[in-house]
């Protein structure tokens, strides 16, 4: 029998579309009829959504300075036509 423990442990495989055949069908059926597992999946998606919102775009100035200096040195090595 496909249980709630099975469904929650296979959630990521389900979202990654790596479940196949009969197992996939059992998972879909279970999620359709089990409100608790449906809630668990929604809550996991909410956690993932909040994690996405933590994305920053910082570049440390030391790294940026190094990269710019390296590009300038490369430019100095390129033969001028």
């Amino acid at each position, binding site marked *: *029998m496909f*249980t*709630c*423990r*099975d469904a*929650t*442990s296979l*959630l*990521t*495989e389900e979202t*990654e579309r*790596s479940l196949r055949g009969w197992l996939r069908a059992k998972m879909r059926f279970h999620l359709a009829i089990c409100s*608790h*597992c449906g*809630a*668990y999946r929604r*809550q*996991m998606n*909410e*956690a*993932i959504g*909040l*994690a*996405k*919102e*933590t*994305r*920053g*775009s*910082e*570049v*440390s100035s*030391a*790294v940026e300075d*190094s*990269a710019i200096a*390296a*590009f300038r040195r*490369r430019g100095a090595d390129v033969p001028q036509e």
Partner: protein
Amino acid sequence: MHGPLTKLALAFVGTKAAAEEVVQETWLAVVVELDLFEGRSSIRTWIGSILVKRAKTRGVREKRSVPFSALGTEEAAPIEAARFSARGYWSDPPRRWDAESLVLRKEARQAIERELEALPPAQRTIVALRDIEEWTSEEVCNVLEITETNQRVLLHRGRARLRAALERFHAERAT
């Protein structure tokens, strides 16, 4: 891309400072080796591979030579066994969370941030690359040289811990 590279380096080295150094070395290597990029993989995977090689070397020097695939797979199941009956059905099911206000969402996001920092390094890396930076499964597996199965296990455990942290956050607010 700097953020995800730092997170990736942190899976192999001990400190954020060391991770920043590895990322810096990686960018310099990218500048020097850019002509060698043949386009057989995405540029993101190529840069990630350069970083992983350097981070691993640094990690070995720091005596942190546990294979990436072994990190974060040793912990217990993501949901406590006691929350299921002996037959495998919920005995302590998830509770409904209150509708969100903007303030609540900000605090919830902070709870997630704290849990992200607390994740085992491998889980943190996979969640950061897959869910935050939206790398594909193939890119992550290629750069980290792990199997799809291994990657899925780490991703699932990381996500389950984030969900559990959010559950604790809402439970504390409800009391």
